[in-house]
């Protein structure tokens, strides 16, 4: 058991520290290591865990927790989670210390103003990427458009919105099962 836990740390900790650009950049490496190198999972098992981490809220890199759970239960899940988030978080907080200290400097205002337009492009790119990855159907696009308007124009509680979407989807499923 200790050996597997150590291997989990040795696998996830370096990937964490090197995951520039977010969790999705290391998924291919995680797949290769867990399936082809360590033989912890079959290709299908990895695909199943990846699907679960995709539909769950929160970061996709929680797949590391699922892999840990698969191997060593709760202890494995906790060790894998810590190995995945401690290195990158430590790097982030240490680097950002300088950023937070430069509060209100002319330099930082310029950085913030320069970042803003690039951020807008990246936000929309991210939204489109998620729609593409889930093979969005027409009804998904309509849902996205309506949700975007509701969230933009109202202060509706997100939980109410999500529950409403779920109820409407169940309704559609029950009424038009053949059309799906």
């Amino acid at each position: 058991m200790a050996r597997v836990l150590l291997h989990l740390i040795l696998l996830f900790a370096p990937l964490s520290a090197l995951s520039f650009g977010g969790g999705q950049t290391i998924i291919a490496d995680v797949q290769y290591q867990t399936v082809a190198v360590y033989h912890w999972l079959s290709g299908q098992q990895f695909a199943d865990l990846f699907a679960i981490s995709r539909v769950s809220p929160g970061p996709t890199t929680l797949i590391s927790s699922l892999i840990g759970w698969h191997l060593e239960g709760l202890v494995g899940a906790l060790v894998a989670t810590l190995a995945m988030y401690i290195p990158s978080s430590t790097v982030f907080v240490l680097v950002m210390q300088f950023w937070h200290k430069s509060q209100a400097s002319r330099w930082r205002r310029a950085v913030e103003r320069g970042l803003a337009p690039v951020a807008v492009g990246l936000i929309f790119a991210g939204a489109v990427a998620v729609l593409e990855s889930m093979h969005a159907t027409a009804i998904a696009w309509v849902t996205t458009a309506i949700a975007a308007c509701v969230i933009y124009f109202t202060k509706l509680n997100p939980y109410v919105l999500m529950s409403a979407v779920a109820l409407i989807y169940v309704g559609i499923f029950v009424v038009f099962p053949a059309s799906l």
Partner: protein
Amino acid sequence: MSALEELAAPAAQTAHKVPLLAIFTAFVRISVMSFGGSTAAWSYRAVVEERGWLDNDAFVAGMTVSQIMPGANPVNVSLYVGQRLRGWVGALAGALGMIVPALIVVLVLAGIYTYLARYPLTHFLLLGIAAAGVGATFSMGAKVAMRVERKLIRYVFAVAAFVTVGVLHWPTVPVVLVLVPLSILSVLGE
């Protein structure tokens, strides 16, 4: 006091007032509902619009930096907000709030997924919830876009980032590392 210091003063005053528990619970709420990659969007709503902990520019800048630094973007956003408000303990509170509930949900889901996956309704329902999450991201994109200065050069950088990453699927990190310095230079040159 210069205009810039005045801008920063409210944030500095609230810096010592926001309780760690408030940071933690804010991100717990965000974590549980962040389907379809909508973490940043719900964080924007909670942190900028509802609580006023950070202004638009500070949040958006931190969010962009979060995307290129190592680590999952949702976790980095929670670290950024927490650290800005309360230093490294704030960062810890934010990250725990972001990770722990999502961890519980993903483990529970893993336990029941093989059973639920047999039913077409499961996939249909998850698609709908994820699509609504993407709606949150579009809404946030529109709000942030409205705050960008009305200058052609800003629009050029926004469109360049969208086309390269969203349409051409170039990797985010090199694109940002090229576009952001150029964009900042264009600001400094004005």
